[in-house]
């Protein structure tokens, strides 16, 4: 007998008892719905974490110069300038490094039109905007020419704009002063919000590195008085880039093997992947709970199929009497169970997507629908149908036709 024909027989049998078929499916509907909704929300949360870290800068390494040592007191990372501008050029030439930019920072009091604000002045090169995914809100970023000529221009973070100019006035074209040095405001960066550690990324004034060195920084000009921010060519390249930078700097600084580095490299993509790992674990946990409910739904199917086999004993006897082989009966009941569970899986998918969409609308949770999860959930519900339908179907196929026909 062809599978198609058996499927038709099974479909007819299910249609004969629509309410029961629906109630039986309900367990699977809820199970699959829960899987779909949970994973959609979990994946959404994971994607949001990823987006947060991408906002901080993607595949980012931070290189800090070494520790100063005076007598017995060691000053901590960054206190002894060891990174030079030629180091930076060499880093930019590394294969795994996409971009590198200096980050020279100092706190300063900034004066605007009748207001002043204590913030951080950051001297850098145009690469930083790309590395850290800064977007411009108004005006423009400074460019290579500004860096080369050391022009006195500034790009303000949103927090600085709010405190110096208020929400209504446009700062572009205005002049601010840092100490005695006037800077023309040429742009406002789009707000980035807080970092994962609660630091306000918008409370900053960005100026060209050369200007920073000439006007604000004193002392040794050959060293970078700050850190170097590096973007690896991809997330997978972050670790190789770190190794290459370390090797390069040890060679350039002539550090004998066995001696400690005079710099430190921090890999921020590791933090991002740790956070994502956490979100993923949460998703698996939720999906696990949802899978349990799917198994419970499968037990519901087995229960109803057993009742159905008992109730339809005479029908089975009759089918055998008119020529149904045990295998045909087995297949029919198995197909009924699988049809119930797969139909439940499909309805459950729709219900799960609906529930997820509702939660998104209601609570503003992020949601990410993964097609492979939908396929897996429907496939798993089919497996549930086979596993839990097998025993009732075997019971049916092993009935003795004489006794089945006489069954009251």
């Amino acid at each position, binding site marked *: *007998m062809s599978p198609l*024909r058996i499927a038709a*027989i099974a479909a*007819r049998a299910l249609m*004969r*008892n629509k309410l029961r078929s629906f109630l039986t499916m309900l367990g699977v509907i809820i199970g699959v719905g829960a899987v779909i909704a949970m994973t959609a929300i979990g994946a959404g949360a994971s994607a949001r974490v990823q987006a947060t870290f991408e906002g901080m800068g993607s595949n980012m390494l931070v290189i800090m110069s070494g520790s100063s040592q005076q007598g017995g007191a060691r000053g901590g990372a960054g206190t002894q300038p060891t990174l030079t501008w030629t180091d930076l050029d060499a880093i930019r030439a590394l294969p795994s490094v996409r971009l590198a930019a200096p980050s020279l920072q100092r706190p300063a009091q900034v004066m605007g039109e009748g207001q002043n604000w204590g913030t951080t002045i950051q001297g850098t090169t145009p690469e930083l905007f790309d590395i850290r995914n800064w977007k411009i809100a108004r005006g423009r970023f400074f460019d290579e020419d500004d860096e080369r000529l050391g022009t006195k221009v500034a790009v303000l973070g949103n927090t600085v704009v709010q405190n110096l100019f208020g929400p209504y006035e446009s700062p572009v074209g205005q002049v601010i002063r840092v100490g005695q040095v006037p800077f023309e405001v040429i742009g406002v960066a789009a707000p980035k919000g807080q970092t994962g550690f609660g630091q306000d990324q918008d409370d900053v004034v960005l100026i060209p590195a050369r200007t920073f060195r000439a006007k604000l920084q004193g002392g040794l000009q050959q060293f970078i008085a700050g850190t170097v921010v590096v973007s690896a060519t991809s997330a997978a390249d972050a670790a190789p880039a770190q190794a290459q930078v370390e090797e390069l700097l040890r060679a350039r600084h002539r550090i004998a093997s066995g001696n400690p580095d005079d710099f430190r490299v921090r890999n921020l993509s590791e933090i991002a992947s740790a956070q994502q790992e956490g979100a993923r674990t949460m998703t698996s946990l939720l999906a696990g709970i949802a899978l349990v409910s799917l198994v419970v739904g499968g037990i519901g199917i087995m229960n109803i199929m057993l009742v159905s086999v008992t109730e339809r004993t*005479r*029908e089975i*006897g*009759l*089918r*055998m*009497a*008119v*020529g*149904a*082989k*045990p*295998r*045909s009966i087995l297949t029919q009941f198995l197909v009924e169970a699988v049809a119930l569970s797969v139909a439940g899986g499909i309805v459950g998918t729709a219900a799960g997507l609906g529930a997820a969409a509702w939660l998104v609308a209601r609570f503003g949770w992020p949601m990410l629908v993964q097609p492979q999860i939908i396929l897996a959930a429907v496939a798993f519900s089919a497996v549930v149908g086979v596993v839990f339908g097998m025993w009732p179907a075997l019971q049916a196929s092993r009935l003795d*036709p*004489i006794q089945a*026909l006489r069954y009251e």
Partner: protein
Amino acid sequence: MALIELRDVTKVYDAGDVQVRALGGVSLDVETGESIAIMGASGSGKSTLMNVLGCLDRPTSGSYRLAGEDVGALDRNRLAEIRNRTLGFVFQSFNLLARTSALENVELPLLYSGASAVDRRRRALGALDRVGLADRAHHHPSQLSGGQQQRVAIARALVGEPRIILADEPTGNLDSRTSLDVMSLLQALGDSGITVVLVTHEPDISAFASRVVEMRDGLVRSDTRRPALRAVPAPVLVPVAAPPAEVSR
């Protein structure tokens, strides 16, 4: 060679510690086209004999040859095929599938014989027409009278063009008037060359068969041939050979 050949058939059931001897050595030949009534009180072994004849049960010992084939040794699958192709069953309680149209009920044996959907429909409509119920094809059993339900069951029994129809107390649930209808239908099938085996405990019903086998305690007590009583009134019958290609709904 007879269509049905039973030789010293015994059937013993294990009922826990006790062994029940339902058939104690039955030998019986039935020729093609015969109409035979098996009679006996309950416990006489007539139902067991019916089950063996219907290939629903295998004899404990002895041989059963059906159309030349030794069916005593066949497995469940092969027996299912023989039931499907060679035999048709009519039961006391009709055994129609509820919430299923008369047409689909009649199609049931063809589902297991591999006939195409078009073929199934055509043959099922033809069989319903033979029992005079072509206009009830889309009625459910609950919408049919007892006599009509049994006629649907007869249509189901003959749709696979069997050589033998086994009727187990076919009139047991019917009043005497509809009993006559059903018996005349079975007689007409017998006239068309199908072998009819009737199991009954009512002498009134066995009178419509041309041969009566009486069973007692698992053995054949008497085997009598005599002219059968004609069951009238006969319902309208259409010849076997010409099932209409299209039946009006």
